[in-house]
Structures are given as structure tokens and as C-alpha cells.
């Protein structure tokens, strides 16, 4: 166990935010989960007791008739906001006094940094470069992420769960988002920061980052696995596989929706549903491809003269 | 003369003690500061003449005495006189021109520079004496009694080298040596056979063996000393001698070719 190495990585000034991000995320997930649980319990209680549902103010927080339903922003909100500003200022100052912003040697185009890493918030994308060609990881994926985030309000037809934390009413939406945010985005960043060492090789925490490490890795393409040699064959085969994934996956999503989320499905228009389907499948394709790569060393699935997937 | 010296010594010690006593701070700083020039004057510790001991002895030469080497002085008609080399002079088994001095055992004791000068005379194109001892910084007077010009050229290892011409009847040259050096060769470039050795030591306890190989070191305070016998050709030998107050010890030694 190379504690020194671990410490070097963790204490690098630019990695400190990520180190801070992990407990922060845990805390906020816990906070959200606690409130969701409270709300879900309340909902269950109210569902069971229609009479109570009529009178209850429907929040977990205490309420007494006569209390103001609305409060003045000044001072009741602003005092909190100002307090937050002060606290943030304190945190920021203390951080700035104790830890210096990194400044390395002057830029030298002739001397490549190893590993040369993007800013930490883009490390997820850089990590994806391992599994995808740059045009997917660097261009298509970010675009899809943005577009995907943007269409969320338009494809989420579930009217419940607006304005309060809940799990039971939005199981699918929340699990999908958590999967995308925590598993695909945050954990990739963590991998990119702490695990990827020189040569973008995989180093377990506590393993020494050896610049001279050599590892053997031969990557194949999926068509090779099936003995398809001709370019045209590869192209057609790849198209079939990718197409098949989307067709079969689409069918699978459909059957899942029909069975377990009938209400949502009913509320969705055709466009809404197909959009959901497509983005869901693309999102799922990412870990699938990673597994293909990590487990079977598959580089490409679909090979064409113009692009490879 | 002697009396005033003692008084001076006493005053110096008193001064030092006072300095150390009433201004300790100053003196420590002084000590840590690297001395510029000479070290802070160390007082010459008085030696009680009543307890002074002496060491004497004879230096022998082991084996057959080498025949004296004749020097060809014909080069300069002005050179007349004994023309035998003085490198190894043995008289009946006794070795002349051995420099004897206290090499070790006096500790940090410092000694005053004698006011009298040591002298070298050049006559008959020879140096007199052939081996000379003197104390550090003691004046050395060099005379020329020959009707010819000499030049005096010491070739020291640890002192400054010089080379001065001295015409006949010229005034004596006055010089001194600041650092200890044993068997410092002095020569004359015009008369290549002219050679002598100067021994510069820090204490007054030195002697040069005479014709009979005899020497005597007087006025030594009681103690254990390393006595060194140095011969220009045969090198150095040492002996350890312990003397008590008023002792008169003998230390003989012999050199082998």
C-alpha cells in the first residue's frame, strides 16, 4: 500500500474539490432521502385515511392554524440567505488561506504532462475516451447529455412529486437520474481523478503511479469475435448489432413500461415515449460498452469507413 | 629588563581576568568572532626560573663517517675559506648541525618574541651558522663579510619567499619569519654551494648541536615533552622526555645514514 502516493493524489490542490464533493454528495443524498421518506410515509398515511387527507396541511413540518401560511421574505428568508453568504465567505477564505491554487511550470508544448488531465469536472468525458472514439465521448455524448437534460421536463409526464421530495411516486425518474448523475458522471470523475495514472492506466488507490509501467492489452472489434473479416461485412454486422440493440432494447423498455409504469405510459404521447426510450437506451449503452471493453476487450462494435462505434 | 617584562605579564593577565569577569558578554562575542589578523594576544605564561629544568645530550652518528665533500669554489675568486660541504659533519661519531627543539608538550603556552636578533654571517662564501634556530617573528640579521656579492634566497614551504641581493659591505638585511617552519633552506644563487637551514619555532627551547654533537635545552618548566632532532639530510627523530622541577635530564640519539 503506497500511502504516500495516495496522499499525493488526494492532496493535489485541484483534486481537493472532488475529495470534498464525495461527502457533500453523501450528505445531500441522505438529506433528500430523509425528506422523501417522511413525505412517502405521510402520503401512505393520507392515502389510507381520506378524511385526514382533507384536513391535513400535507407537509411533514408542523403547522397550526393561525400560523402564517406565507412569511415575509424580509427578514425570514433573507436572514438565512445572508447567513449562508457569510458562511460561504468563511469557507472560501479559509480554503484560500490554507491552500494555494496550483501553478505549475510555464506552458511547454514540447513537454507533455503525463498524465495530462482535463479539468476535474470534465474527467468523466475524458474517462469515456477510453471506451469511445473522441467524436462520441467528446462531442456526441456531451451534446446528448445536454439535450437529454433539457427534454426531461417534456418527457416526464408524471404530475406527482412536484415541489416535494418523494421516492415512491417517482421511482423511475429518480432512479434513472441517480444512475446518470452518480454512476455515470460523478463516479467517472472519481475514476478519472484518483484511479487513472500515467498513460491513463488503471491504478488502484494505493498503487504507485509508475511512469514506466507497461501493460499488455489487445483490443478487438466485435465483428472479429465473430470472424467477420470484410469491411462491408463489418459495417453491416455492426449496423445490425447497434440497430438490434435499439430495436430489442426499445421493445424491452416498452414491455417494462407497459407492465410496471402503466400510468406513466398511458400519459405519454408517442414522441415522449420514443424520446424516453432512445435516451434511456443510449444511457444504458454507456455501461454496456464499458463492460464489453473491460471484460472482453472489445474496441468497436460497428466499423465503417467514416466512423467507428 | 627582566623585571619590567614580568610586570607587564602580570598586568596583561590581570587585564584579561578583569575583562572576563566584568564583561563576560563581550568576551564571548569576541571569541566567536573570527580573529582578524592575529589571535587575541595570549599572555606569555611565566615560567618560574626556580623550577626550570633542562635537557641536554649528544647526537651520535651511526656508522662510518662519510668523507667530507669538497666544494669547488673556483667559480668566484673572491671565495676563500674552508671548502668542505657541511651537510653531514661528523666528529668522532658526534653529529653536528642537528636542530633540537621541543616539538610538543608546551600546550597553549605562548612565548614572547625575543628582542635580540638572530644573525647569519656570510663569509668565505659560507653561511655561519649552517643551521640556525630562531623564534617566530624574531628578527634575523644577515650580514655579508665577503668581498663579493651574495644573494639570500630562502625557499620556504610555509613562509613568504624572497630573494635579495647583498653587495659587499652593504648594510645588514633585516627579516623575520612569521610561521613555524623546520629546516627552511636558504641559499645563494650566485654560489650554488652556499646553503643553510633556518628553523623557525614558536618556543625558546631549541638548540643546534655543536662540533661534539652536544646540545642543551634550558629553562623548561616541568612537564613531558616531545623533543625533535632534525637533520637536513637524515630527517627527523623524536624522543619523549619528562622533566620534573629543576631536573637535568639527558636525551641522546643517533642518526643512521
Amino acid at each position, binding site marked *: 500500500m503506497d500511502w504516500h502516493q495516495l496522499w499525493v493524489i488526494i492532496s493535489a490542490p485541484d483534486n481537493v474539490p472532488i475529495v470534498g464533493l464525495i461527502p457533500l454528495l453523501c450528505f445531500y443524498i441522505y438529506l433528500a432521502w430523509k425528506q422523501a421518506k417522511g413525505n412517502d410515509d405521510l402520503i401512505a398515511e393520507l392515502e389510507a385515511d381520506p378524511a385526514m387527507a382533507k384536513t391535513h396541511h400535507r407537509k411533514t413540518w408542523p403547522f397550526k392554524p393561525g400560523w402564517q401560511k406565507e412569511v415575509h421574505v424580509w427578514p425570514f428568508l433573507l436572514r438565512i440567505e445572508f447567513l449562508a453568504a457569510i458562511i460561504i465567505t468563511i469557507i472560501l477564505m479559509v480554503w484560500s488561506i490554507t491552500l494555494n491554487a496550483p501553478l505549475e511550470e510555464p506552458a511547454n508544448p514540447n513537454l507533455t504532462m503525463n498524465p495530462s488531465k482535463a479539468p476535474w469536472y470534465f474527467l468523466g468525458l475524458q474517462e469515456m475516451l477510453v471506451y469511445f472514439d473522441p467524436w462520441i465521448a467528446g462531442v456526441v455524448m456531451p451534446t446528448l447529455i445536454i439535450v437529454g437534460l433539457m427534454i426531461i421536463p417534456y418527457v416526464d409526464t408524471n404530475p406527482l412529486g412536484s415541489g416535494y421530495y418523494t421516492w415512491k411516486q417517482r421511482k423511475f425518474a429518480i432512479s434513472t437520474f441517480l444512475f446518470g448523475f452518480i454512476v455515470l458522471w460523478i463516479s467517472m470523475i472519481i475514476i478519472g481523478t484518483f484511479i487513472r495514472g500515467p498513460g491513463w492506466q488503471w491504478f488502484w488507490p494505493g498503487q504507485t503511479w509508475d511512469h514506466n509501467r507497461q501493460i499488455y492489452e489487445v483490443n478487438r472489434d466485435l465483428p472479429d469475435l465473430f470472424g467477420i473479416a470484410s469491411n462491408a461485412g463489418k459495417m453491416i454486422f455492426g449496423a445490425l448489432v447497434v440497430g438490434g440493440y435499439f430495436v430489442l432494447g426499445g421493445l424491452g423498455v416498452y414491455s417494462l413500461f407497459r407492465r410496471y409504469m402503466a400510468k406513466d405510459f398511458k400519459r405519454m404521447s408517442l414522441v415522449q415515449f420514443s424520446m424516453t426510450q432512445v435516451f434511456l437506451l443510449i444511457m444504458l449503452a454507456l455501461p454496456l460498452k464499458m463492460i464489453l471493453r473491460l471484460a472482453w476487450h472489445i474496441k468497436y462494435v460497428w466499423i465503417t469507413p467514416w466512423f467507428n462505434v | 629588563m627582566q623585571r619590567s617584562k614580568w610586570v607587564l605579564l602580570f598586568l596583561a593577565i590581570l587585564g584579561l581576568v578583569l575583562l572576563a569577569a566584568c564583561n563576560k558578554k563581550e568576551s564571548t562575542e569576541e571569541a566567536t568572532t573570527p580573529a582578524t589578523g592575529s589571535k587575541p594576544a595570549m599572555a606569555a605564561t611565566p615560567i618560574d626560573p626556580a623550577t626550570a629544568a633542562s635537557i641536554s645530550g649528544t647526537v651520535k652518528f651511526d656508522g662510518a663517517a662519510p668523507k667530507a665533500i669538497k666544494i669547488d669554489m673556483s667559480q668566484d675568486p673572491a671565495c676563500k675559506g674552508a671548502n668542505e660541504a657541511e651537510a653531514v659533519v661528523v666528529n668522532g661519531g658526534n653529529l653536528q648541525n642537528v636542530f633540537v627543539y621541543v616539538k610538543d608538550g608546551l600546550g597553549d603556552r605562548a612565548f614572547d618574541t625575543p628582542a635580540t636578533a638572530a644573525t647569519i654571517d656570510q663569509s668565505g662564501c659560507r653561511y655561519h651558522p649552517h643551521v640556525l634556530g630562531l623564534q617566530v617573528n624574531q628578527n634575523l640579521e644577515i650580514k655579508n663579510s665577503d668581498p663579493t656579492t651574495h644573494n639570500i634566497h630562502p625557499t620556504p614551504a610555509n613562509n613568504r619567499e624572497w630573494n635579495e641581493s647583498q653587495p659587499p659591505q652593504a648594510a645588514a638585511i633585516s627579516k623575520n619569519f612569521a610561521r613555524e617552519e623546520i629546516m627552511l633552506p636558504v641559499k645563494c*644563487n650566485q654560489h650554488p654551494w652556499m646553503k643553510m637551514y633556518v628553523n623557525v619555532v614558536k618556543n625558546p627551547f631549541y638548540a643546534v648541536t655543536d662540533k661534539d654533537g652536544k646540545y642543551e635545552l634550558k629553562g623548561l618548566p616541568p612537564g613531558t615533552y616531545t623533543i625533535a632532532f632534525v637533520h637536513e639530510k637524515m630527517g627527523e627523530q623524536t624522543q619523549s622526555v619528562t622533566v620534573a622541577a629543576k631536573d637535568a635530564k639527558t636525551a641522546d640519539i643517533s642518526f643512521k645514514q
Partner: protein
Amino acid sequence: MPERPIPENDPIVNKSYAMHYLIATLILMVTLLWAMWDEGWGQRPWKSYQGEFKTRYLAFLKTARTKSATSVDEVKKNPEYASLQQNYEGTSAQAKSRLEELRKQVSELSGRILAVQNVFTDRRAYVNALTYELETGSSASAKQSKQKDIDNYKAELATVNYPDGSKKKFNYQQLEEEYNKLRGERVKVNAEVAEALKPLTESKAKLDAYVTDHMVDLTPQQIAGLQRKTEDWDPKIVQLNVAEANIVDRCESCHMGIRESVKLTAAAMEAKGAKKPDEYAKAFTSHPSAELMNAHDPEKFGCTSCHQGNGRATTSVEKAHGNYEHWLWPLFTKQNMEAGCQTCHAADAMLMAGDSGAIITEGKFLYRQRGCMGCHRYEGYDKEPEELQSVNQQLKLADQQKRENVKQSAYLMKQADSAGSNEEANSLNDKAVALRVANSKIDGRVQQLDFQSHNLMQDMKKIGPNLKEVRLKLNRNWIPVWLKKPTDFRPTTKMPNFRLTDGQIQAISAYLWQSGLKDELPKQKAGNAGHGRELFETRGCLACHSMGESSEMQGGTFAANLTRVGEKANYDYLVRWIHNARERTRPYCPYEKKDIGPEDYAKKGKPFVFDLEHSTCPNDGHEMQVQNMTVMPSLRLSLEDAQDIASYLMTMKKQEPTAYADAAFMEDGALQAEGKKWIRHYGCAGCHEISGMEDEGRIGTELTFEGSKPIERLDFALFTDAAQRGGKEPIGNAEDLARLPEGPSKGPWYNHKGFFEHKLAEPELYDKGMVKTETEALRMPNVHLAKEEVRALSTFLQGSQELGLPASYQYRPMDAKRDIQEGWWIVQKYNCQGCHQFTPSQATTLMGMKKYQDPDWKEQLPPKLLTEGARVDPEWMRKFLTNPSLSTADTNRNGVRPYLKVRMPTFTFSDNELRKLVRFFQALSQQPMPYIPQQVPTLTAKETDMARSLFSSNAAPCLKCHATGDAQHDQHATAPNFLLAKERLKPDWAERWIRDPQAISPGTSMPSGLFKQDGDHWVFAGPTPASFEGYDKDQSKLLVDYIFQLSPEEQRRVAGAKGRSHAVNAPPSKPGRSTAPIRAKGPGPGVENSHASGGAAR
């Protein structure tokens, strides 16, 4: 949701945030204060340094002042001071009354002037105003009336009240006159005051100057000044700002004592009662080298241009010293401080200023001497091959241009023939003619280039011997043994250990053997080894070569140790080598790329003669390499002497040459290709001349800017981690470990210094643990350097940086300084300093030898060249360097000092090098070039007589030591012949020399005190005849003039009169006695000479 009691009051509205705010605000305040503190102190550790400095420095100054005061008192005790003091008091008493009177006058005058001035300036202002109105007046009448006003006003009388109460009226004109008159008077009186003060100030200045001149340290006044300055010091950043070079250095914010005018040591700056100098004390010392500081004014160079580090940073010691990961220029360590010199002085061979420079100079020297440049290019080293290439390129271009011109000219002429008009034809013909003239110019240039190439060929040297002649000179069976590990055979060899496998050794030696020249060498007679030994030990061989091993070793390390040379050498070759090492078996033609043999000459019907005069190829007329590329000179020995020495050397062996195992495989032709491959692989041709490898390039990395190579580019291989974190020292081999200058690493060594030093100590280190094939393995051989040598080379490499400063900071002088630089390269190339002293502090190899410790042998040392440029005529020097025997017939001797056993060899310098050397000596002694000889006045008969009386005086027996050309007299001469003086010496130098030779060459046999100063001129120290009565010129000058006009006859006459020849003609002491006349055998005229008697002792 667990049941929670609902509170009575609305918590949202009623909850108080006062406590939250209080705490948050408090924390915010604390944070703000923290930020302030951080800004004011946390980021400014130098403040505490300055505070500490103030206390310690003041304490130091206090003691210094008392000490200084006592020494001032001592100085004042001096009678000389007392007389000055008296003088001062006398003058001041004298001047006193006069001064008082004058001062009174001045004050009186001042009062009167003021009285007049008050009135006058007022009136003048009014007149000026009116005049302005007059000048700008619009009409003639207005002007007229103004003029009238002015005139009227000027005519008005004004009253002046003098301070003594008297009054006087003046009109304007008178007023002005009075005013000017009074002022003039005051000026005059003031001048008188100054005049009266002059003797006073002068004697006062003398008095003060006496104190300052006789004080070794500062005076109490000066120290008081420092005390005041220090007491008034407010903490602030001290910075050197050199805008030109973008240097901002704040080093002095902590290192406050660095430029103080008193010498501060760490011990002096210790805290009170401290045992050891702490961090502060070490930081407060003054700069150790005043010389360096004078040469490099910090106001121009800052600190970091020499020391590196981050000069701007002030936040911590590590930051300021640049000892952190992302700073590219960390402070050079104390041990490698001199690396900083190299950054600007890369072009200099010799860097000495005060005590500094020895390490870097050694590094530069070693880089050539140990053959580093054979594999690693370095700007400025071994540039001859590159220059030669460029010359050849230019030659080709010139050739091409010539052909082109001929063609063009023919074309133009043809056109001219058929031109339409005469004019046109003439113009075309002119052009054609111009082209032909141009060609002749090119011819001139070609000649120059050929000459240049001739010179370059001559200057080109290799560190290792010529291996083409391996068959002729070596014992075949010895070669593989040698290659196995050269240090086993000769521990001090320059040949490094290559870690060759047996297979490689066999292949390499086979190739060398088979590719070697197979010519026959002339057979040599056997010589007298005893005589050879004497020659070897006295002729100066030991200035470069050494003999004996380890503690027994005597001689220089510049060339090979010859203790076992008898085991490997071939006698016939050795004789020839000693006789003239430059003599080649066959010349090499770089154009044809082959060794030219007699057959090639025969083809052209030419005799097989090649030397520097016959250096063109018989086949194509190109310049050839006609010399062995060795720096070993010719000692102009007779063939017999050479045979004697060779015979002696052949006896130097530990085992018989025949005892070596038979290496028959070297005749195996099958190994040749393999051998060639390995020779190429290991870059052998970098140091040796090898058949078929003449044009091989260097195999190593260029090192010119190695010190600024990014650390990532230095391959620490498997030790990267150990180096970064300071793990266990990876060098295991004890011998190699001992090469690390600072011993086994104690902390991280992931820096240039660490890399270089580990690499130099154990070059294969970075292969350790790696799996590599024979060809992949690191090729760098073990150069078996000593600790100090590793340090020197590491310093050199660390300083080898691309300069971040403006190019003007590179030391590239154009004048005499450049000549000095260029000269040092040659001096070092040929190891001149093995015999000669160039600077007072430099010791020669011979000086250090046991033999030369003896006073008689000391006189046998080669002459010191401390002021050689001032001493000799440059033209004479050129001749002398070309042929040190100064004779074409009798060459087996020294030209100037025939009495020296040691021989000034013939180096066959090229004209290039001759020019540089002559300039070097002139520049080193600050002599202007070109030299215009000084006219020596012709002496009158009377003067000649007087001079002769000095020359032959008993008090200055010149001819006793100086050679006269009379063989018998010269046997015991110890100084050069006067007859050489005219051509050789510069008269002004000669005069300085006879006045005080010890000042020019300390320890010379020539005594001082021949002349003494009498008033403003120099007179003879001995008795002078009556004719000197009334002679008021320098008598030393007279003697010099005489010597410069000395004719051989005159010299003979004087010598005869002095009976010198007579004395010498007398038969020497009778032979046959037990003590033979030593004079014949000894080194000089020494009788009791150590050699002879020492021999008897043995």
C-alpha cells in the same frame, strides 16, 4: 414521520438567528483577521529575518566598534600620525586669525549687499514690468511715453539703509553698479577664505586618510554610520530590479548582510549564547567572494542570474530558493554553486575569480580531458571537425560558383560577338570580364579556405590514440585484456570501462587488429635504459605522464601512466613515438576517405613524403591529415635519446608481454563485421582514429543545454520513485558509491544534480533491474571518476542551461578578454600549465613533484609565465613557439634557457593557434596589440662606460648566472643570455624586472635589491664609480639600455675582464675522487645536490 410535539409559537417566525449571526460574524472577523495576518506576516517570513538581523547585526557592530576604536587608537599612536596631527594643528593655528578676519568681511559685505538688494530688486521688478509694457505696446506714441516713464523712474533716487546705520541715495544705474560691485567683492573674499582654508583641509584630509589607510577594518565613524542605518531600518522588501533582464530579486530581504561593507560570518551572526550558527546566522553572512561581487554588480545581475532560485518569491525559504516541484530553476546547491558561472560563461575555458571557479573550471577541463566530448556534442568543444566540414562545404560552393562563372562568361562573350550594336557588345564583354575577375577573387578565397583547412587538420586532436597503427605499436594479446577492464591494467587511464561482454571484446579487438595498417617500421637499436630513465625524469615527460602506481605515483595525470607500458608496447614504434609522436605511418585523405600509401604516391611519380609542408593528397590535391591527432609534442630529442627512453620504458612492466594469453581469434576474419558493429555502437571513433570509422558521428546526447532539460526527460528508470521520495541509495557497488560527491543520498534526489551525479558515479545504474538486450543497454561507460571530478562535471552540467537572460548577459567579449578566453582553451589543450605557471595561484604539475621540492631543483622548474606578455616581444614569441630551440641546426636543446634540463617541446601549433596564443599572452598581461617596439636610445660613450661599470660591478655580478654562449660558463648558468634581450624582451619590462624581480616572479633566482629608489629615480645599490656623480637619470634604465645594445664582443670583453671565462677554463675538480664533480651530473650548478648525494645514500 415520528410524532413530534407541535410547538406553541411558529418556529419559522419566532426563531431567532441572533446567535447564528453572532457566531458567524465572529468567525468571519477571525477569518478576516487571519487573512490580514497571513498577508502581513504569514506570507512574509522575511520580517522575522529582518528583525533578527537587526538585533544580531547591532550587537556585532557594537563589538566591532569598540575593536575599531582601539585599533584607531593604535594607529594614532604612530609617530607618523603624530607628526601629521602636529602639522594640522600648526596650520590651523596659523590660518585662524586670517580666517576670522575674512569671515568678518564676508558677513559685513553680506549685510551691505542685502541692503542694496532689497531696494534694487524692487526697482528692477518695476523696470522689468514697464519694459514689458513698452515691448508689447501697440503704438509708437504709447511706446514713447512708456520709454519716458522708464527713463524717469530710472533717474529717481532711491535710499539705501546700510546695516551700520548710514544711508545713501542712488539712481537706478548707480544702484545696479553698487549691487554688482558689492557682490563681486564678496566673491573675491570668499575665494580668499577658500585659499586660506586649503592647507587646513589638506592636512586634515591627510590626517584622516592616514587613519583609513592604516585601518584594516572600518573606522568607528563608518561603523557608527552602519549602526545608524541598521537602527533606522523598517521592515520592508529589499529588491533588486533589473528591468532589462526581467530580474526581480528579493533575496536581500532575508540575506541582509550580503552586501554589507563589513565581513559577516555565520559565527559572527550567531544568536547570543548559541552553540552553532542557526538558520538565521547562516542567512546573514556577507557574500564570500568580493571579487565575484565586483565583477558582477548585483544592480545589473541580481542574484538569481548566478544562483538561480525564485527571486520574486518571499513566502517561504523553499519557495524563494525554488526548491519546489514546479520551479524550473532551483537554487544551485552549495557544492555546485559554480554551475551558475557556466550559464553565462560557457565559452570560457578558465573561470577564476578569487577563490571561486576552481570546480567549474575543472568540470570544463574534464569534459574534454576525459573524452566526454567524444560522444556528447557540446557547443564550443572539439569544434574543428565541424569547422572543417563547413570549410569543405564552402570549398565546394566556390568550385561550383567558378564553373558557373566560366559558363556565364562564355555565354556573354558569345552574345557580345553577335550583338546588334557596339555599345551592347561592349557592355556584354565588360560583364564577361567582370566574371573572370570575380573568378580570380574566388581563387583567392579558395586559397584561404585551403589554408584554413590545413590549419584545422593540424588542430584536430583525438583524446585516444590512433588505432589504425594498432598492429605496429601493440602487443596483440594484450588488447582483449585491456578492453575487458582498462582500469585493471592502468587504474588512472582515461579509457573508461565499457562493460563489454567477452564476445564483444573478441569482435572489437579482431576488427581493430585486422583493419590496422600493416606497414613495416624501421628497426631501432637498443638504447641505454639508465640514461633513458634520467632523461625521462628530467626532460619534462612527467609534466603530463605519470610513473608508479597509487601512492608511488609521480607526475601528471594529463597523459597516460606508463608504469606497465612495457607489457603492451612495441619497441620500434615507441622509439618513433618518443622521437616525434606526430609522425604518421600513412596520411589520411578525408576527401577520398582512405589512408594514402606509397603506392598512391608512386602512381603519381611522387616520393612518399608527407608532412605539414607536403600535406596535399597526391591523387586529388586535397588537404590530408599528415599528423597523428595527438597533443603529444616533439621534445626534439636525438634518435639515440629516444631509443634510450624507449628502452627504459620497455623495462616498465609487471609481467612479461609474452605472458598474455594467446588471442588468435583476432585474426579471425569472420569477427570483423560484428566487431565493426560494436565499435560503431559504442562510439569508439569519438576518441580514437579507427580505420573505416573516420566519419562516425557522436553517439551520445548533446549536452549543451542538459541542465535545463525538463526533469521528466531525464530517465530515472526504475529509480524514479526512490529518487522522488529519497528511498534507499540504489548504487550498491562500493567503488561507484564512493564516487558520489556527497556520499549516499540521504533524501530525495529527483533533480538534475541527483541524476547527473548518479549517472556519472555508476552509468549503468538506470539499467538496473531493467530487462534489456545487448544493444538496448545504456552505452555510457564508467569513466571511473573521483568524487571531486564527479562534482566538477555535475556542476558543469547543471550550469549547462539555455539562458533565460538576454543574450547580452552571455560573456562574449570582443577585445583582449576574448583573446584570453581563446588562449586558455589552447593552454589547456596542450597542458601548458603542466610546466608553466600562468596565474600566481595556479600550481604546475612539476612544482608538485617530490623532486622539485629540493631548492636546487626548484630552480630547474620551467619559467613562470605570469607576465610573459609584458616580458617578450610578440613577434619573437611567435618564432619561439614555432621553434623553441631558436635554431635550425642545433635543435636538441632549449633556445632561451639551455641550462634547464626540462625541455620546452615543439608543439607544431597551427598558425591559428599561434596567433591565439600570442594574443593570449599579450592580453593576459594587458599589453596592447599589435606591439610597436619601443625605441631604445643609443648610449653615448660615457653612458656606455657607466653602464658597463654597472654591468660588471661586483655588486651586480650579472654574468655569474646569465649564460654567455661560452659552453663552459653556461654549464652553471642559471639565467638566459643577454644577447637574446634585444629581440626577445620589452625594454620597459626589463627595467621593472631588474628593479624588483621578486615582484614579477616570486621566488626567482634573480635577487631583488640591486637598485634602490633615491628620491624620484632609481640608483644602483652597490658602490658606483665617480663618473656617476651628477647623473640624474634612472640608473636601472641605463643598464637596460646597455643590455639591449649589448654586442657579443662586448659581452665577451666584459666576461673576460671579470675573469669568468678564466674561472671556467680552470679545470674542474679532479675526477677519480670518491665524490665526482657533481656539477656535470647535477641539474644545475648545485654541488650538494640532492640527486647525487641522494643516489649515494641509496
